[in-house]
């Protein structure tokens, strides 16, 4: 169990592994593929006060060992998100952290107002834009803080993460998430157009670890590491540079089973170790092993082999 105690309200998590904003939807989407109860929490896709449509044109560009995603932050708006997903948040097997995109202070305040009193919400994560300044962080944070008692995390961009983490600490944030996926531009091989968007992939990890290390040295509040984590060793590297918890991003899409493996590894839940098997050797749902085991247990035991009578004595 870890406690992120930077702000006026502590955020207590059973496991230091979370899924980051923009990867797992608004709550229930991954329920069939991942045992969410094993996670420390999930952060919802970014929500804004007004509904936002998806970006037009190409939204996904495959890269060498990675991907560029330009979704345009599509979301139903806070009112409809609450209407559609609040029942699922209430029943969620793990804490839900609502990610609010920091668009304008008054809109943030109204978003927080709409979330007030909803069960299952453990914290609010404030997603700052890439060009946010110290003043922006303070303004946006104050707008949220005045209307909620929930712990508030602030997610900053990868570049100048240490300075922005300092600004988040000065504003009173409970923890700072380092960092949002960086932006890049790539040519769409199908249309030839240049497309800008967020970058994901394992190569992001060294950049993120450096930013996390710098942030850890510049602030006293807990730092949550995020970026390019694809296995338990990656996650432990973030912890070794001082992160108190981690958020997983695109690994959720490319290897959902790895999410549970990382959570089990970092949460001290590696039950297979006792039998001598490595955790990575087992994957949820692999080969219907649970169903087959149940079938085998339900069937009568096999009869012992009978020796042929014509064998020489």
């Amino acid at each position, binding site marked *: 169990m870890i406690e992120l105690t930077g702000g006026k309200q502590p955020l207590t998590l059973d496991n230091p592994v979370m899924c980051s904003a923009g990867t797992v939807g608004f709550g229930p989407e991954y329920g069939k593929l991942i045992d969410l109860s094993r996670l420390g929490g999930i952060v919802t896709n970014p929500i804004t006060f007004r509904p936002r449509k998806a970006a037009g044109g190409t*939204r996904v560009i495959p890269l060498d060992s990675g991907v560029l995603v330009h979704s345009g932050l599509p979301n139903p708006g806070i009112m409809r998100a609450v209407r559609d997903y609040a029942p699922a948040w209430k029943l969620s097997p793990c804490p839900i952290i609502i990610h609010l995109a920091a668009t304008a202070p008054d809109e943030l305040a109204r978003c927080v107002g709409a979330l007030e009193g909803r069960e299952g919400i453990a914290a609010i994560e404030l997603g700052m834009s890439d060009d946010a300044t110290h003043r922006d962080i303070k303004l946006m944070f104050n707008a949220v803080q005045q209307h909620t008692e929930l712990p508030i995390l602030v997610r900053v961009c990868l570049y100048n993460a240490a300075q922005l983490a300092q600004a988040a600490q000065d504003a009173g944030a409970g923890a700072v998430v380092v960092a949002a996926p960086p932006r890049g531009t790539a040519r769409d091989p199908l249309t030839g157009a240049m497309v800008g968007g967020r970058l994901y992939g394992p190569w992001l990890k060294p950049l993120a670890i450096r930013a996390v290390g710098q942030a850890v040295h510049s602030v006293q509040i807990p730092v949550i590491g995020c970026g390019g984590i694809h296995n338990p060793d990656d996650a432990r590297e973030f912890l070794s540079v001082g992160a108190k918890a981690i958020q997983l991003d695109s690994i959720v899409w490319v290897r959902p089973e790895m999410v549970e493996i990382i959570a089990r590894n970092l949460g001290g839940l590696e039950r297979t170790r006792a039998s001598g098997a490595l955790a990575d050797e087992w994957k949820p749902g692999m080969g219907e092993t649970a169903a087959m085991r149940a079938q085998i247990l339900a069937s009568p035991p096999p009869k012992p082999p009978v020796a042929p009578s014509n064998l020489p004595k």
Partner: protein
Amino acid sequence: MQESQVIIERVRRVGGAIQQLDIAVDVPQRTVQAGQVFLARATDSYDPYLREPWVPIRKRGGTVTVERSVTVTYQPGQVVGFLGPVGKPLLLRETARTLLLIAFDSTPAALLMLAEQALNVRVAVALALIGEAQYYPLEALPPEIEILRGEDATWQGQRDSIRWADQIVAVAPPPQDRAYYLKLRAAAKDARGEIAPGYVLGLFQPPMPCGVGACLACLVRVRGEDVAACVEGPTFDLALVSLE
């Protein structure tokens, strides 16, 4: 929907450019129906990073057959990570007696399971191979299917084909899909006057990073709302999709 590991049982070359893989799948994946896809990862590396959509063209018992390009080598016994079935089934209209399938500039693989399903209930099936699709090897198709060919979206005899069909299902590659479907919708309206619900369907095949509607990268605008192709699609009624 389940994540699992499946085994390639047999690799069969068909024509010069495609190969068919017989894959032994788990029980949940045997429920796959026409229109649904699997998101597959055939390597342990992260290149390619995202799972690739593998479209089933046939299923027999615990074996599903998919079609792949010959540019990648697959071996019998190879283990593949499978996620799926993804999406909603493509349903044949109950009153349909004639079915027109159209492949614009792409393999008709995504339509073959529906073709087989239609033939099994004695629905007459015609397949229009348009543009690059003309070079698809005919030995990969059931002999009962009537083949039409055309150079572009308005092929000769298109109007008659549309009037003949009780249902039309088309596939086109992104990003040209919208342009093709727009022309098809206009042609259907011209030939029929009114387009009934479920009469003209189009398959949308955008990249699907997650396959569960979480990443919102495969959204299609239907009835004024963004819906995820990996959850509500990938087949949509073209009368309801915003194509402009």
